[in-house]
């Protein structure tokens, strides 16, 4: 039975001021609408320019249901194309990334395309003479997506025509990406190291919400971070320096008061971040030589300002999280209502000491890997929620912590760090972008 398709009003009724209906997490029809509308109406991250250093370099991306190719053209520009031959629909590339040379060549009938998608040649072309091919859609080549924006090497697309501009969609929230880039003495990041890929048996939004959930670490991670702290306290050799791994784990056991004081900043359109005044990343040991490099590049005052900004998790709605002080980016890729692939990527700060990249990689494997004990704690909770939501006892999920009547979603504000406001902010954006896309193009993309 179609309850939500062609029914924006029913979809909108799933999100209340302080609670959301369980169908946002478990209903396959709602999931289908997300794929067709939410991921078409918002600016979605598809990759980083450092993954495409040479002309002809490409990578595969999926936005909603759409298979895409992100490619560096011969003139240096970045193009994003649908990964579909205009002839028979064959996927042009299947590898996650590679170099195609000067052109793409379909492996089925050898139609070939320039790296900006334009049709280059068709074998035995005389077979199309007087057939009117020039009028056919196929002659246009690999279709580009409607909107591409490269912001300081971060590549975003918006599949729908119309809707919000890149600048309007992200606004001031880009400051978190800026801070991560500014942490390089040369002002440049490169993606390095294989991404850690982790399959989750839960809805993708549970993961996004958890990025700004500061009331779970001391509870859910008592088993991992708590054990790390107690083992270190018991086994440390007197006078020994706290190892990097213990520095990574132990702040997860910070008190409620610490997280309250950390603060949360919300931005319009569902973006927001934890860690305004301080964060769990603020007390890492200094890396020898780094401050000197930063001072030489930026001057002491600006260098300090950059490094004193210790934002914890920045959620870019709908589905990425950026961690500036650690230089990681996580993408929450929805596969089904109850299945999510998480890819956790690592950046090297160009020109900075190796030890910073070592810490980035260590953080990623300790916290974001399928072998991560912190990850095990979290996934257990998501999967239990996915199961528990089947109970008919109460169809509503509560997001009420530190709610204030009349709360607005079109403002930038700093609030108590244990507020669930950023989750409410996300759901407001969720319902608003799906709704506007459904109303403009009811059938979907």
């Amino acid at each position: 039975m179609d309850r939500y398709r062609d029914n924006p009003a029913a979809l909108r009724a799933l999100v209340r001021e302080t609670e959301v209906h369980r169908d946002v997490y478990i209903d396959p029809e709602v999931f289908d609408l997300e794929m067709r509308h939410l991921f078409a109406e918002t600016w979605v991250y598809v990759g980083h320019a450092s993954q495409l250093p040479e002309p002809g370099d490409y990578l595969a991306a999926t936005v909603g249901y759409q298979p895409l190719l992100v490619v560096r053209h011969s003139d240096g520009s970045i193009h994003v194309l649908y990964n579909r031959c205009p002839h028979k629909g064959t996927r042009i590339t299947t590898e996650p990334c590679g170099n195609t040379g000067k052109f793409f060549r379909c492996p089925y009938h050898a139609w070939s395309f320039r790296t900006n998608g334009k049709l280059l040649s068709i074998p035995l072309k005389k077979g199309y003479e007087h057939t009117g091919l020039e009028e056919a859609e196929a002659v246009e080549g690999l279709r580009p997506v409607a909107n591409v924006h490269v912001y300081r090497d971060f590549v975003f697309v918006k599949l729908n025509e119309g809707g919000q501009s890149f600048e309007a969609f992200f606004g001031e929230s880009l400051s978190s990406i800026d801070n991560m880039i500014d942490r390089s003495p040369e002002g440049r990041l490169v993606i390095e190291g294989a991404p850690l890929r982790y399959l989750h048996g839960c809805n993708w939004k549970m993961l996004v919400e958890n990025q700004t959930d500061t009331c779970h670490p001391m509870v859910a991670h008592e088993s991992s971070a708590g054990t790390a702290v107690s083992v270190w306290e018991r086994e440390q050799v007197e006078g020994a320096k706290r190892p990097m791994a213990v520095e990574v784990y132990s702040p997860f056991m910070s008190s409620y008061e610490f997280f309250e004081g950390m603060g949360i900043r919300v931005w319009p359109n569902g973006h927001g971040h934890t860690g305004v005044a301080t964060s769990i990343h603020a007390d890492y040991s200094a890396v020898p030589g780094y401050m000197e490099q930063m001072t030489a590049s930026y001057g002491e005052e600006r260098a300090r300002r950059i490094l004193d900004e210790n934002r914890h998790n920045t959620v870019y709605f709908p589905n990425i999280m950026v961690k500036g002080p650690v230089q990681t980016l996580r993408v929450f890729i929805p596969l089904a209502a109850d299945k999510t692939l998480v890819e956790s990527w690592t950046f090297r700060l160009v020109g900075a000491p190796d030890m910073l990249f070592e810490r980035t990689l260590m953080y990623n494997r300790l916290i974001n890997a399928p072998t991560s004990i912190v990850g095990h704690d979290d996934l257990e909770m998501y999967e239990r929620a996915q199961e528990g939501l089947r109970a008919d006892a109460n169809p509503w999920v509560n997001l009420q912590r530190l709610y204030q009547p009349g709360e607005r979603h079109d403002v930038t504000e700093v609030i108590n760090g244990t507020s669930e406001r950023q989750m409410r902010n996300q759901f407001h954006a969720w319902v608003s972008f799906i709704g506007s896309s459904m109303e403009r193009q009811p059938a979907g993309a």
Partner: protein
Amino acid sequence: MSSIAPQDLIDFVYREARLLDELDYEAWLNLFTEDGRYWMPAEWRQTDPLLQSSLMYEDRLLLRVRVERLSGARTFSQKPKSRAQHLLQAPQIDLFEPDAGAFRTWTSFHYVETRNDVQTLYAGWATHDLVLLEGTLKIKLKRVDLLNFDAPHGNIQLFM
């Protein structure tokens, strides 16, 4: 052991797998040298555990954290507990230098981890760098290369 024979290395690798299958983690941890490491690369033919992406690269402190966590009262991802089983091909000896006290074996394996109603099969190769310490073989480095290191995995909670 006063002198090491090739068969001792092979026996060691089998015994190590058995300790893991029997969930005897205290005995298993004691197989490592003080500076021993357990490494699970995340890249093909990886050479660097620190500046390339790994799934695990852990010293005894971190391994002990894992072991204690597995039996913790509030370790919810172990309610119910996981179990593991190794199927090893005969270990091959890649390095045998008794005078230097340095040995290396290479073992192809299938590994099964199970919890609740879900059982998952992993395949790969284990490389053991072993040393002789006061007459006893110890693990300096256990390297586990998964066949599908690049695939998206669900929870891997125990040790391969």
